[in-house]
């Protein structure tokens, strides 16, 4: 599965992930605290500049990922123009674009494994409290495993259906599919147990 990391390498890639995340938090809080539209305009332009720094490909890629926000922008602007509060509308839109833009920027310049490492550090205290961190990590890996396997099982099931039916399978396979998926989860669970599993150090 592809993550949403950027296609080009940037200098921001080498900055520590934890630092980027902390900066993002502070910036987001600041954006929601300030109510001056000029400050927001400056902020939005700075974010745009950040996107432009690594070059064209990065810029296009990043802006495309902000595109899903256009309906919000349109609705808010229309609404505020109609109610005569254009400046408020602008402020809300700019703030939203800057906040989402900055957050995307962190995602684009931080690899999945670095993110995982930060998460692991954040979760460590829970480990002391008895939370099974290895289980969490394996669960995440298994989601990535299940997604293509589910697609595969789905097509195997459709094939089994077509082998004995002239009608298309359609919605009728939803329940058999879920049953198959549940059974697959059971098999994976047993396969995990066969090779150690999670309770190795616990004597049940």
């Amino acid at each position, binding site marked *: 599965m592809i993550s949403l990391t950027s296609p080009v390498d940037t200098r921001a890639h080498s900055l520590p992930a934890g630092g980027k995340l902390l900066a993002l938090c502070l910036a987001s809080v600041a954006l929601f605290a300030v109510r001056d539209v000029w400050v927001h305009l400056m902020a939005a332009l700075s974010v745009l500049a950040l996107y432009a720094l690594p070059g064209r490909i990065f810029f296009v890629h990043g802006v495309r990922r902000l595109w899903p926000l256009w309906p919000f922008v349109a*609705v808010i602007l229309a609404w505020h123009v109609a109610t005569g509060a254009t400046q408020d509308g602008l402020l809300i839109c700019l703030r939203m674009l800057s906040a989402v833009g900055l957050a995307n920027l962190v995602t684009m310049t931080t690899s999945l494994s670095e993110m995982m490492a930060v998460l692991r550090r954040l979760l460590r205290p829970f480990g002391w409290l008895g939370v099974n961190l290895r289980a969490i990590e394996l669960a995440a890996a298994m989601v990535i495993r299940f997604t293509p396997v589910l697609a595969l099982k789905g097509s195997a099931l459709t094939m089994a259906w077509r082998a004995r039916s002239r009608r298309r399978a359609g919605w009728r396979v939803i329940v058999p599919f879920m049953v198959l998926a549940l059974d697959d989860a059971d098999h994976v669970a047993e396969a995990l147990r066969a090779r150690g599993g999670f309770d190795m150090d616990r004597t049940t």
Partner: protein
Amino acid sequence: MTTERSVAQIALFTALIAALGLIPQLTLAFGVPITAQSLGIMLCGTVLGAWRGFLAATLFVGLVALGLPLLAGGRGGLGVFASPTAGFALGFPFAAFVTGAVAERLRGFAIGWSAGIAALIGGVVVLYIFGITGLAIVLDRSISEAALLVTAFLPGDAIKAVLAGLITAALYRARPDAVASRS
């Protein structure tokens, strides 16, 4: 229930929510998509029960935050949590939890009904509370204005709750011990 089985089922349902995001979604005029993913959230609760449903949805939201494009339309990353739909995404785990908790408390009803009602309470009422709050904050609207926006989802979400009831009942018939809200 072994830890392995819990973890495998949690991972499976997280993947299921992700897979439901592949069903082409319809984006409403104000930008929130109509998505089958909330059906996945309902099923987390009705099948896995409150806690494991909560964990499956949390894992999903966590993976989105880490940067995997699992939301409808291939969206993901931290930006999601600064955008107007953030309330819905952050509400997923709680919606799943309440769905499961309600389903567990309605054992007196036939399973289809208890699952359907639970899905309506958790997957619609609770999810909307989070979603509306998120919209109100990010778009700077009042709660009632934001609430007006989400009424557009009601018909679709009512259908999803019915589906959740039917699917859960059918699963219970095929694999009784896999439906946690009944065992």
